[in-house]
């Protein structure tokens, strides 16, 4: 069956620069001196550490437990000893730090006991749990836990499974090489994903600028017949999940909705490969393929343990002189690393050495003239120039109305902008500001609710106290005036009509005062003796001594301190 291709609007065609890093086969990166494994490597919660400093770990041993069902487990990438569990800076645009497990490899690469599972006999639920516990997340860059994507949605099951081998970002070739060399393993992983989702149809989308990968995948799927390998036109961002789903099925998934709701779900080829390893070899996700390219002597792809310091990894590719920065990810969506002593994470598909000659500095930002180049390039079919005005003016309500959250931050608009406006930066600013405002609003809402509740409670308590007092007073009055006037009325009436008859009131008042005086006297008599009363003479002498010392100290304190020498 030949799939009908759909088109997505917009997109750009930057120079692909793929050939630089596809000349050499995937090489295994040597064991680094140290591994820093961040515990939070997927969307969702932060796994709790399961190890402590000083502990020995085996390769593949779980070191981070998934928090609830919303994250995936973290494993020791090699055997060795835990040096520390501490906060380290993450390779993230924010430059924030988070809890990491630092492991010193022992060089033996001793695995935990690996138990391969025959997937056909397992239930989808058991396999989803296995994926969660094996730390399988989307390796295309978003690192969304795969077991969550495979959950049947409200609208039912996933009928179409999309496998993303498009790899549209320039320079990056890790998926390309993986497909060329390990197509068979990828296809085995696809079969597992398909079994879990019980999908009718599997489409593997690969950009048509990777003929070798397409050929390898076609050969690997030749037996299984019903997996369709579909070359898609090379146009950035064809590998964006929403764009690839649109191209292969015509379905458009709006912002905030899951593909499952539309009967379709998308997985990266690298994810499929690691699914195969996790299920059929019992090896959790402890490594990934990373492209090292750009201004380097030996560009290529390496199988790298998660947690490997980027600077140690870069030595394999040998950055050339003139490299002024390193980008994690591609030139379109990647970000410049503030430092290189940061670890490789599950999201790290490429480390790109940039130089002024490869990436000439952008010209100065000029005013937007509303030329519409961005609109034509936007694959989300937004009006980027309008979003720019709104973001700049901090008119966030309007920005939201014009769909700023539908922006996938692919960078096509900034790429084509003749005025060199860093459009995506403005959108990120607007989005984070809006999220911060929302958090602030939620916090202030909670504070207001708390405050109102407290006021209410205080008022209620006051009312209760008043009622209690009134009742008490009335009871006392009744007790005193009771003899002469048995019908001195209920306490409520006393409160409401305080003056039934003046002389009687005076009488009652006097009686009340007398009662109060009596109470006070009794209280006074009942007071406990002070702790300095009734002491033995020795104790009293001791107290006097202490008092004398105190007086002395006070006098010393009064005299001004000597001048420091």
């Amino acid at each position: 069956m030949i799939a009908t291709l759909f088109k997505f609007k917009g997109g750009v065609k930057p120079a692909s620069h793929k050939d630089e890093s596809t000349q050499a086969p995937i090489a295994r990166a040597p064991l680094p001196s140290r591994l820093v494994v961040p515990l939070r490597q997927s969307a969702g919660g932060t796994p709790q550490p399961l190890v402590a400093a000083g502990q020995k770990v085996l390769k593949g041993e779980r070191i981070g437990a998934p928090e609830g069902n919303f994250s995936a487990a973290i494993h020791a990438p090699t055997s060795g000893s835990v040096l520390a569990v501490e906060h380290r800076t993450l390779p993230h645009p924010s430059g924030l730090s988070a809890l990491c497990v630092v492991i010193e490899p022992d060089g033996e690469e001793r695995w935990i006991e690996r138990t391969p599972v025959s997937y056909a006999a397992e239930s989808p639920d058991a396999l989803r749990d296995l994926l969660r516990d094996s730390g399988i997340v989307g390796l295309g860059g978003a690192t969304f836990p795969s077991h969550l994507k495979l959950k049947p949605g409200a609208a039912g099951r996933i009928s179409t499974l999309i496998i993303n081998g498009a790899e549209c970002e320039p320079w990056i070739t890790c998926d390309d090489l993986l497909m060329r060399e390990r197509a068979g393993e990828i296809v085995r992983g696809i079969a597992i994903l398909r079994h879990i989702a019980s999908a009718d149809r599997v489409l593997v989308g690969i950009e048509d600028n990777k003929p070798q990968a397409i050929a390898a995948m076609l050969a690997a799927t030749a037996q299984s017949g019903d997996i369709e390998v579909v070359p898609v036109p090379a146009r950035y961002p064809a590998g964006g999940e929403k764009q690839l789903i649109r191209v292969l099925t015509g379905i458009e998934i709006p912002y905030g909705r899951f593909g499952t709701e539309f009967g379709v779900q998308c997985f990266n080829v690298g994810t499929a490969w690691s699914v195969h390893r996790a299920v059929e070899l019992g090896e959790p996700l402890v490594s990934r393929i990373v492209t090292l390219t750009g201004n380097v002597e030996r560009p290529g792809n390496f199988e790298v343990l998660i947690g490997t310091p980027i600077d140690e990894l870069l030595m394999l590719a040998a950055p050339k002189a003139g490299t002024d920065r390193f980008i994690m990810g591609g030139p379109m969506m990647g970000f410049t690393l503030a430092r290189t002593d940061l670890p490789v994470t599950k999201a790290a598909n490429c480390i790109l050495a940039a130089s002024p000659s490869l990436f000439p500095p952008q010209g100065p930002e000029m005013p937007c003239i509303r030329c519409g180049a961005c609109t034509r390039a936007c694959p989300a079919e937004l009006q980027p120039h309008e979003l720019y005005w709104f973001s700049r003016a901090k008119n966030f309500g309007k920005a939201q109305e014009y769909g700023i959250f539908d922006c996938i931050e692919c960078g096509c608009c900034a790429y084509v902008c003749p005025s060199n406006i860093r459009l995506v930066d403005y959108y990120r600013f607007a989005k984070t500001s809006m999220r911060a405002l929302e958090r602030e609003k939620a916090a202030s809402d909670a504070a207001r609710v708390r405050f109102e509740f407290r006021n209410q409670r205080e008022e209620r308590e006051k009312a209760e106290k008043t009622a209690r007092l009134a009742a008490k007073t009335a009871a006392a009055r009744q007790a005193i005036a009771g003899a002469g006037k048995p019908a001195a009325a209920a306490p409520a009436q006393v409160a409401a009509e305080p003056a039934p008859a003046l002389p009687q009131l005076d009488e009652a008042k006097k009686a009340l005062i007398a009662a109060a005086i009596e109470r006070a006297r009794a209280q006074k008599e009942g007071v406990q003796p002070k702790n300095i009363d009734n002491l033995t003479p020795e104790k009293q002498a001791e107290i006097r001594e202490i008092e004398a010392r105190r007086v002395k100290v006070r006098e010393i304190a009064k005299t001004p301190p000597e001048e420091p020498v």
Partner: protein
Amino acid sequence: MLKVLVALLPGIAVYVWFFGAAILVQIALASAAALAGEAAMLRLRGKPVGLFLSDGSALVTAWLIALTFPPITPWWLTVTATLFAIVVAKHLYGGLGQNPFNPAMVAFCISIIAFPALMSQWPAVGFTDFTAQMAVVFQSQSAQDAVTMATPLDALRTQLHTPEARATVAGVLGSHASFGNIGGKGWEWIALAYLAGGLWLLQQRIITWHVPVAFLGVLALIATGFSLANPERYAGPVFHVITGGAMLGAFFIATDPVSGATTPRGKLIFAAGAALLTWIIRSFGAYPDGMAFGVLLMNLCVPLIDMGTQPPVFGHKDGNKEGKP
């Protein structure tokens, strides 16, 4: 912006061929005034002068002013109008990218309202004597009837659309040999050269098809309807499209991104409205050509048009709420 200037070159060449080199002097005057005004305003506003001068936007405004004004306009009017366009219509509104009105058209409208006689002083075809033209431009000599003439649009207006008029379209256009067969001798060739330049801009993806197609299409459509109903009173579509500022406006003026609509449907509405106003002013108004007024009036409507024509976002299309193809 430099490509826009390049696209104007064929039109200018044909202009020079038919009407002499005076237009080049006008272009030079307007360019000098525009650059001076731009530099002064940039300095006052504390912007990097060199960077902004090199964007070419002031030159585009200057050239459009020169090309829409009569080539024998007195030098001071060209300079004043250009300065007004740059200083008031552009920079006082916030400079590049912020002006709600097309600066060149502001200059044109201000001038034709303030100096209607000077702005209607078009050279006769064949009056290409450079020295004589310069004498008029620099006013050592006032323009004489021998060297000026009414444009076909002007002739139509005065002879057809005034209450005492009794002429017919065919009668007016046939009355003067130099009115040519289609849109006025010389003018029709200039319009075709603008068309060529405009098509090149389309091919270069500097402009989109929406504005030229909607502008010329609507203009032709209305003209066809009315000229079929009353051929003696209303000129035909070919005449309207090829005469006056229609072709220049369709490809070079109404396509200004800053002051025009930006959405595809918005561009169609904007250009259609400008064309409708152009035709109405040409046929019933007090001014011979209505293109400049049409564009300015539609500039006013741009925020509303853009707001009302936002195209659907990926995944949120009407009738596609479930994302099905």
